[in-house]
């Protein structure tokens, strides 16, 4: 038995998904919205990064469906008791990676612990050795066979990935051939030569790369700690994957939170001018003048005090950590809306003087209608560009804030927390480097993909660059 748990951020994440889908449906019939997107997906760079982003997104969404499992029934129990631990679908998929916890540090693919331990041998002697790991490579009788075992597993993984991608290639060929009414073989050839307008070949290659990675990790992580373990023996790969959701939530929900403010206030200030403008300008100048990190720090500190004094508000640890994450998004939103607001105000000031707004006024069109029908659609591209550009900055900011100590809850898995936890390990001899490297690599891949994608989006939507 399981009991579904809907955390606040889960709800908002799925709300965001709904918003995106609704917008996509709306945009389908609007040529001016479709055309730039078509341009985006024509770029090979954008398509490749879109595939990477999708992989991250799917992981994040799987990690956003939470539940609690029932505890084993004890005698005389009347109703089912649920575990205090909140799990996600991703947790169950990761299975052994989550549960196979070692004693302490172990290097990637290690079969032995990274630290010496005092072990009493059969003869009653105490020696300091590197003991075998409980799980990592435990199936090997002789650790020396590790290389061959890894190679064999990798070969299986490669075969799986290649066949999965090949299947996808065929599927894409069939669908495109049907839509364009062309023979399948010709279409497949066209795909393979990269002669389609949308660079399907690039997309498939990116898919192949990701499939290869997933298959490798799936095959190897069952028997090894592919990225090693941390101080308390937890698998670093598990931590890195679980951190994806945190990064995505901060990158997207923050924007979701700040958008209404920025758009509404920016348009109001630009359209009505006068005292409305003065008040809104005062508001954002004031907020802007407080150094961002300090405002976030102050707010998060206060929230910490509040939460510490009101422990009764949270049923589970997960809920508490989740609310803290949501609050962090709110705070980041409050500190980051000013830039977009100012931009939209300026643009509205320009737009309201344009002839078509004057023409609408000359028809007696109401102000609300002018705002919604004439101004908003002509500001949307700026909003979109701001959203995609902000995303990567926010993901990076999470790491810094967690380092400062005002980021996500220490119990939440995040790249920032991983880096923060691992940075002192740099001073160890020998050095423990894998946690850091894993966190940086996962974060770098996401941010790089987001940056490349936002470049393509900006090129397509920014009217200044067009033509």
């Amino acid at each position, binding site marked *: 038995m399981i009991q579904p748990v809907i955390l606040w951020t889960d709800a908002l994440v799925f709300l965001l998904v709904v918003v995106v889908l609704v917008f996509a449906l709306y945009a389908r019939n609007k040529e001016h919205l479709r055309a730039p997107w078509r341009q985006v997906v024509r770029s090979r760079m954008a398509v490749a990064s879109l595939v990477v982003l999708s992989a991250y997104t799917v992981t994040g969404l799987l990690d956003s469906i939470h539940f609690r499992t029932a505890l084993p029934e004890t005698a005389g129990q009347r109703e089912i008791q649920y575990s205090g631990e909140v799990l996600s679908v991703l947790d169950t998929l990761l299975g052994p990676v989550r549960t196979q916890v070692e004693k302490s540090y172990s290097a990637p693919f290690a079969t032995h612990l990274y630290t010496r331990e005092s072990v009493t041998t059969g003869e009653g002697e105490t020696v300091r050795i590197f003991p075998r790991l409980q799980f990592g490579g435990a199936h090997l009788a002789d650790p020396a066979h590790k290389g061959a075992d890894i190679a064999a597993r990798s070969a299986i993984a490669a075969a799986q990935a290649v066949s999965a991608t090949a299947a996808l290639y065929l599927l894409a060929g069939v669908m495109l051939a049907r839509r364009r009414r062309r023979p399948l073989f010709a279409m497949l050839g066209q795909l393979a030569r990269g002669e389609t307008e949308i660079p399907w070949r690039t997309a498939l290659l990116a898919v192949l790369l990701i499939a290869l990675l997933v298959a490798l990790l799936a095959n190897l992580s069952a028997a090894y700690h592919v990225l090693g373990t941390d101080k308390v023996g937890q698998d670093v790969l598990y931590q890195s994957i679980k951190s994806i959701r945190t990064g995505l939530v901060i990158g997207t929900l923050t924007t979701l939170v700040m958008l209404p403010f920025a758009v509404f206030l920016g348009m109001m200030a630009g359209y009505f001018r006068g005292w409305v403008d003065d008040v809104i300008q005062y508001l954002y100048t004031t*907020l802007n*003048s*407080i*150094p961002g990190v300090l405002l976030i720090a102050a707010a998060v500190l206060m929230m910490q005090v*509040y939460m510490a004094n009101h422990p009764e508000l949270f049923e589970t640890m997960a809920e508490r950590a989740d609310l803290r994450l949501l609050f962090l998004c709110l705070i980041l939103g409050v500190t980051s809306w000013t830039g977009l607001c100012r931009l939209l105000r300026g643009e509205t000031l320009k737009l309201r003087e344009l002839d078509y707004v004057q023409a609408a006024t000359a028809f007696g069109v109401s102000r609300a209608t002018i705002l919604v029908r004439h101004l908003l659609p002509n500001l949307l591209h700026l909003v979109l560009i701001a959203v995609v550009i902000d995303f990567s900055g926010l993901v990076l900011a999470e790491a810094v804030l967690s*380092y400062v100590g005002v980021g996500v809850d220490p119990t939440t898995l995040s790249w920032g927390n991983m880096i923060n936890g691992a*940075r002192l390990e740099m001073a160890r001899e020998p050095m423990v480097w894998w946690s850091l490297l894993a966190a*940086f690599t996962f974060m770098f891949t996401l941010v790089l993909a987001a940056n490349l994608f936002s470049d393509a989006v900006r090129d397509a939507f920014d009217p200044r660059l067009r033509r």
Partner: protein
Amino acid sequence: MLAYVVRRALYAIPILVGVNLITFFLFFVVNTPDDMARMHLGMKRVTPDAIEKWKAERGYDRPLLYNAQADGSDRLTATIFFDKSVRLFGFDFGSSDAGRNIGADIKQRMWPSLAIALPQFLVGLLVYVSFAMLLAFFRGSYLDVSGVVLCVVLMSISGLFYIIAGQYVFSKLLHLFPVSGYEPGWLAWRFILLPVVIGVIAGLGSSGRVYRTFFLEEIGKDYVRTARAKGVPETRLLFRHVLKNAMVPILTGVVVVIPTLFMGSLIMESFFGIPGLGSYTIEAIQNQDFAIVRAMVFLGSVLYILGLLLTDISYTLVDPRIRLS
């Protein structure tokens, strides 16, 4: 000009009042001083006496806004609001929750901060502008394309990575610099150099790319075509015509941070153990010393507003179209 400066200074007052109200709300209304005392003294088994003592030592035992027990003007001044917020306007920062004089700390610690931040700012500006100009000069070539790709890669790397990797490579592997620490006086350069280099590299991606677009935007303008039509060589075109025009948008983002250089960089100073205002702040955050955080928020706002003023003044220096009135 003077009238303008005065007017801007006056405009700063309502903003600082706003900042003050926000911090006051955050620090004293969201949580009562009792909550904070409990937090500091440890959550469990705190006696009310201990809380009262903690509050009295730090001056948090007064009413928030209005003191009904006091007489005359004290009714308004013998309050937490007056004591902790209004006094900031006189740059009277009071003492920290740990009992140190914040004003003295700031005076002492801003110099190491400046010693890192100022060279980083100046060298950075020089490097970014030259880099962007180089790319703009070779626009469309492979050099330009690979430069842009480099920028995107650089800006996708977390700032923490630059510091950790830099410390590892230069200090641990190559032993070129001390890992961390600081020494006042001329010997400080050994401690300053690495943070400065790392800071400059960390900012190259985003700044270099943005500045490049500024240059390209200017190069596309009509006056550049005019200059070409009179036979001006490309290099001279870039240095004499484009550079000064591109400095206008560059200054918008750059001048505003000059005053805040005093505040130092939180991350950098903490990693390198620089006893500046950045590490001061981060220690305060980690020790939950709210008095210091409040002081730094106020100081940061003042410096930011000063930066806005400097930005406006700097415009008039590079752009003859703008005259302050």
